[in-house]
């Protein structure tokens, strides 16, 4: 009798889970194309902002000994440069950004895709405001080994500025490593 009761309860719970999972499956399939399209648009927009190209192809990075902060590397199909995505820790959390690297190993632009920096201080680095644009534009043309002393750091946000500068320098190093590997 008692066993019967437990089996019955388990069946009810299982049925409820099955119904909910079924409904979610339907909603997921309806929303999936839109979600994928949005993600795609966002990545392409971020890439286009740092390095103009018609199409980008992902470079396999598992074979190289790279900095752990590097997430992925994309190569411009025309060979004009690379786009490197990396995550560095900022003042309040992780900063994810893409850095464009031209074939002469200089930075062609940066774009911060994700961050949780203090609004009004570190967050300026990612904001579309005048100060934010000016901060990001000063990285255009810099080379490997750039330090925070070489740029105008954001007032009150030394940690954020350092993180962004490190990301730029590390991204260029990464591209050098990958190019070196390809040549060898």
């Amino acid at each position, binding site marked *: 009798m008692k066993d019967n009761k437990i089996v*019955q*309860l388990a069946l*009810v*719970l299982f049925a*409820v*889970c099955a119904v*909910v999972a079924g*409904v*979610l499956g339907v*909603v*997921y399939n309806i*929303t999936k194309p*839109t*979600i994928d399209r*949005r993600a795609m648009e*966002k990545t392409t927009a971020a890439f286009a902002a740092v390095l103009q190209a018609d199409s980008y192809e992902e470079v396999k990075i598992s074979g190289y000994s790279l900095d752990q902060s590097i997430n992925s590397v994309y190569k411009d199909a025309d060979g004009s440069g690379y786009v490197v995505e990396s995550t560095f820790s900022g003042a309040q959390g992780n900063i994810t950004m893409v850095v464009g690297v031209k074939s002469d190993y200089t930075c062609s632009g940066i774009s911060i895709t*994700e961050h949780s920096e*203090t*609004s*009004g*201080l570190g967050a300026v680095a990612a904001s*579309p405001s005048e100060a934010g644009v000016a901060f990001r534009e000063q990285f255009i043309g810099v080379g490997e080994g750039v330090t925070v002393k070489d740029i105008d750091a954001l007032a009150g946000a030394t940690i954020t500025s350092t993180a962004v500068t490190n990301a730029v320098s590390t991204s260029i190093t990464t591209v050098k490593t990958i190019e070196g590997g390809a040549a060898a």
Partner: protein
Amino acid sequence: MRIQDQFRDGLITNNPITVQQIGMCATMAITTSLFNGVGMGLSVLIILTCCNVVVSAVRKIIPNEIRLAIFVVIIAGFVTIVDLLLKAYIPALSESLGVFIPLIVVNCIIIGRAEAFSQKNDVKASFFDGVFQGLGYTMILVIMCVIRELLGSGRFGGGLIDVAKGFRFTLDGTGGGIQIFPSDFGASILTLPFGGFLTLGVVIATMQYFLKKSAKQKKAAEEAAAEAARLAAEQEED
């Protein structure tokens, strides 16, 4: 229970945040811009109403022993639906609320209302309970957002209102809001975690102040009435 009573309960006398004091995590974490506050509030309102209705509709057929497990499954289902819809149609909101959308599953408001209200009441009452409790939650979120955003960065309606190209509402999170005073003069500490704790503390304290005051007045009025009745009775005896 009358609808007016439910309305007052949800918004003031039994407000989920300031009186029941549940569901605080998200309240403090995401109230940095009006966009977040309204978005989170409405998401909770929708999920709460749906869950209340479903729980109340199936309340007689689910076995009592596993009702909590079933509630949790139902709640997780609705939360995931809202999460997917937001990701697809309002991605900016989904990004800025991040992990706090799936975390609505363990927001005590929803399971609390299922357990305390909708499993005992009919569908109609549960529906209104969901709407009004959700409104009460949204109201406190909006109050906190307005305070933190205005004093912290001198803005109103960040993310929601775009004044750069004429006054309009946006849902893509790009609106800069209305700058009331330059952000350099703001106390940006209010936008930090500390500001979340402090603002919620002050909001609840204010609410308690007025609730206590009105309780005191009510009591004083009752005492005065009792006193008058006693005097009247004495006079009649004379």
